[in-house]
């Protein structure tokens, strides 16, 4: 099996976020796409990556294979990639080979780890608020909230505004994402909703805002938060986080 992804740096940002959620993960290569689903040890968040074969410059996968890896180890290699570098992933005799192809090639050969975990099911969930916003304001809202306390509250009452609040013991920060400011692209509110999430988990995926200009934010009161990032046009990284229930 061999696949060449033209944007190694984008993949590095994805793995960077993933490495903060789990220490080990496995990518399943099928003839159509690459799928990765990981659940954090506390079982409150899930990281899903789907890269269809069309994203790859070369995609040679005849039968389904799995590559299990240590996320920190893979990240170390990927971090060394520069802009315009490509990433080649191949499987050879029990070893996963990751190569950065650019001005010169760097090859990393790691033992394919049998992560031997059950396949995580495709999450099915209906949420009342579905917003598409620019990812920069999301990153800033979360960073602001981090300075105040350890929870962040997402709320939407009308289809004009998405509000992200950071709540601390004695203070609060508020980021209003609206069409006027240009940060809000679309907002559907089936029912006014408000839900709180732990920052220690959300901040892990902030690095994904580097690779996606927009993000789909969905939530319902006392239900999980869903953040979906479109990567390189056709790929998707989705993050689910259980609400913080008092």
């Amino acid at each position, binding site marked *: 099996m061999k696949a060449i992804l033209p944007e190694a740096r984008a993949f590095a940002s994805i793995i960077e976020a993933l490495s903060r959620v789990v*220490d080990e993960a496995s990518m399943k290569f099928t003839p159509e796409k690459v799928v990765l689903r990981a659940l954090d040890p506390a*079982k*409150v968040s899930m990281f899903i990556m789907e890269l269809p074969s069309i994203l790859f410059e070369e995609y040679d996968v005849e039968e389904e294979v799995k590559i299990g890896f240590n996320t920190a180890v893979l990240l170390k290699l990927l971090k060394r990639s520069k802009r315009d570098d490509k990433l080649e992933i191949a499987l050879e005799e029990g070893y996963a080979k990751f190569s950065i192809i650019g001005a010169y090639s760097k090859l990393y050969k790691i*033992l394919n*780890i049998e992560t*031997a*975990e059950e396949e995580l099911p495709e999450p099915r969930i*209906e949420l009342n608020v579905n917003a598409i916003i620019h990812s920069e304001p999301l990153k800033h809202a979360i960073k602001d909230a981090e300075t105040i306390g350890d929870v962040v509250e997402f709320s939407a009452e009308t289809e004009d505004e998405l509000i992200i609040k950071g709540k601390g*013991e004695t203070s609060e920060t508020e980021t209003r994402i609206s069409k006027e400011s240009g940060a809000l692209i679309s907002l559907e509110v089936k029912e006014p909703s408000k839900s709180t999430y732990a920052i220690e988990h959300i901040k892990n995926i902030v690095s994904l805002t580097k690779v996606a200009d927009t993000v789909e934010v969905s939530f319902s009161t006392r239900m999980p938060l869903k953040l979906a990032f479109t990567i390189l046009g056709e790929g998707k990284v989705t993050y689910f986080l*259980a609400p913080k229930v008092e």
Partner: protein
Amino acid sequence: MANIVVHEKPDLDRAREAIRNALSRRKNIYILANCSVDYFGRSSSHLDFGERLIIIKSDGAVLIHRPTGHSPVNWQPETSYIGVDYDSEEGMLVLKALRTKPRELVTVKLSDVFLIVEAELRDPGAFYMHISEKEIRDILAANPKLLGENFTTIDIEKKVEPGFIDLYLKDEKGNVVVIEIKRLTARVDAVRQLKKYIDSLKNYMRTEKIRGIIAAPSITKKAYELLLKEKLEFKQINIEALAKHVSKEGKKSLFDYFKGV
């Protein structure tokens, strides 16, 4: 035999005296009254007049219960000051409970007192919360440092060829740590089970150093001898102490929210 003093439909003067007396003697006080509640602290709230139960415990904890629902509408787990005074302008008793860290003040205005019970209660009973092996595992997975070392949880119920590893962690030095949890005294078969898991892991992991630990309230002598022979470790866990970490709300995992899973 508990010492109980009951005041039925006391006028406000008598109510104030009874409450003051009981407070100074650190008794448990139960008051049924028509009252309003004002809370000021991290946030603030006001509850209009209604008939409620006010509980003041001998350790200074204060709770206010409405006629329905199981949770108190307002509560202070500890207070540094509780006092009651008569407000002649409003013609009501004012009960104030102050907490200093964080600073919170609950002010209860009582317009009508129906019942006051002063009680000196003795409760030496030990509390045993029955927790399952799964709950022990979940508590240790969320708080691995409870095992006495700077562990990081990597996985729980990790599948290996012979079965499932309860807890799969990493220690400070980066070594892989496999933990087998037993709710009761660990016996020889537990040690053998742990050894099987470790041998299975060694087959596909390049790491030479895998630590195996039995976590249990106690271990039999024979099991301990086998443990030492196999270069495994034993960590004693206190089930009662762990039980305190069980969240009564039942913290939900992400999957509890998904449909049809």
